[in-house]
């Protein structure tokens, strides 16, 4: 199972607390993980990536194993620690403000 930590506002929207666990078929990538999130929580469609372009929203970031992988191509395999569930994938709202 892949573990994902959603940002506060998306946890509220999805009505979940803590991490979510998702059954993601290999290869485990940004795209397949977000596909799994959207299948399990349809109310999150359009909030992580744009409905039409499928591009990551500009102020949403992906962190894996202490690395910002937001700029990686969406079909790049995620680290084994993420794919195996040892470490969670963090989806975060970017810092903003003064």
């Amino acid at each position, binding site marked *: 199972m892949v573990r994902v930590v959603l*940002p*506060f*506002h*998306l946890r*509220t*929207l999805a009505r979940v607390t803590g991490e979510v666990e998702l059954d993601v078929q290999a290869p485990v990538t940004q795209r397949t993980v977000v596909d799994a999130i*959207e299948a*399990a*929580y*349809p*109310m*999150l*469609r*359009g*909030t*992580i990536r*744009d*409905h*039409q372009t499928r591009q990551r*929203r500009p*102020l*949403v970031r992906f962190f894996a194993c202490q690395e910002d992988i937001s700029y990686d191509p969406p079909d790049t395999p995620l680290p084994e620690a993420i794919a195996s569930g040892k470490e969670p994938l963090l989806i975060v*709202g*970017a810092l*903003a403000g003064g």
Partner: protein
Amino acid sequence: MTAIRVLVGTRKGAFLLTSDGKRDKWKVDGPYFAGWEIYHMKGSPADPSRIFASQTSSWFGQIIQRSSDGGKTWETPGGGPEEAQGGVARGESNKFVYDGSAETGKPITTHKWYDGTQHPWDFKRVWHLEPSLDDPNTVYAGVEDAAMFRSTNGGQTWQELAGLRAAKGDLWQPGAGGLGLHTILLDPTNKNRMYIAISAAGAFRTDDAGKTWTPINNGLKSLYQLPDPDADVGHCVHRIAMHPSRPDVLYMQKHWDVMRTDDAGTMWHEVSGNLPTDFGFPIDVHAHEPETIYVVPITSDSLHYPPEGKLRVYRSRSGGNEWEALTNGLPQKDCYANVLRDAMCVDKLDPCGIYFGTTGGQVYVSPDGGDSWKPIVHDLPAVLSVEVQVI
């Protein structure tokens, strides 16, 4: 027993204010959708328990929320996993895709940008939701970049009324606040007729239920804002209001100037009269007196606060030109809050109640048509919209 429910959208969530018909003592519930911008909430005239809300975020985009129990509980229409079976569209209540199909007339796909070049339409948020007058499952959405969408399944899916952008959309240009469709008026006597307004494009009318649209900006003058002050499109209309008994008579608060038309927008004429300034955002009509209208004058387009720090609603009982300041209960010194375009409304009780919210977080009520005012709440986040239901 009559009850009042005021729907308040703010920069940081939604609030429901409830009272009885006296409109004296109030209960405040919220915040709902805490931390999100709630651009607009409105109840269905056909089913007051059904309320739609536009929830937006710079991080996570657009969300449509719907309540079927008067705001006690909310859902994203078609967003729950329980609807996975049966072919029901899931997770598409926030999917606003501009229609470029050949079937609907190959609408214009670019509008004028700040640098004068053409720029693709880019969906940002829903500014205004207007439920149908007689069908609780039909609702219209005015969006930025300016376009109009319709849902006929309670907000689960949306289709653009793309003919609007064919009304010289290539000439529309965003103002500083964005290219937003903020006003939707439905003619209660003619289901095919609707009016909308866009900043900064102007006012438009359809007579065929949204298939085709006509700019209705004759008589508007935008000195120092447009190179041709009498241009067909490009005027910064801030708000339009209608009394349901006279749907051909419209009142407009433009960027500058308060305007009126008596022929469904064929020609407008100015009715600013003795207002201390004719810049402002909201305008509304008394529920039982079609010639009684309300505006909130704001100093100027450079100074978005009331003149002299005095928060004054102005009322005309003659359909414009002759205005009186309403000050009883409103702060008459040191007030520098603004009142935004969707933040004023009237109820249908007798005497008519008037409501407005400020960017300072106050929501005021007048239970007597504007003669006296009192704050319902003082310290909400900046108020973006105020609507009222009599239930």
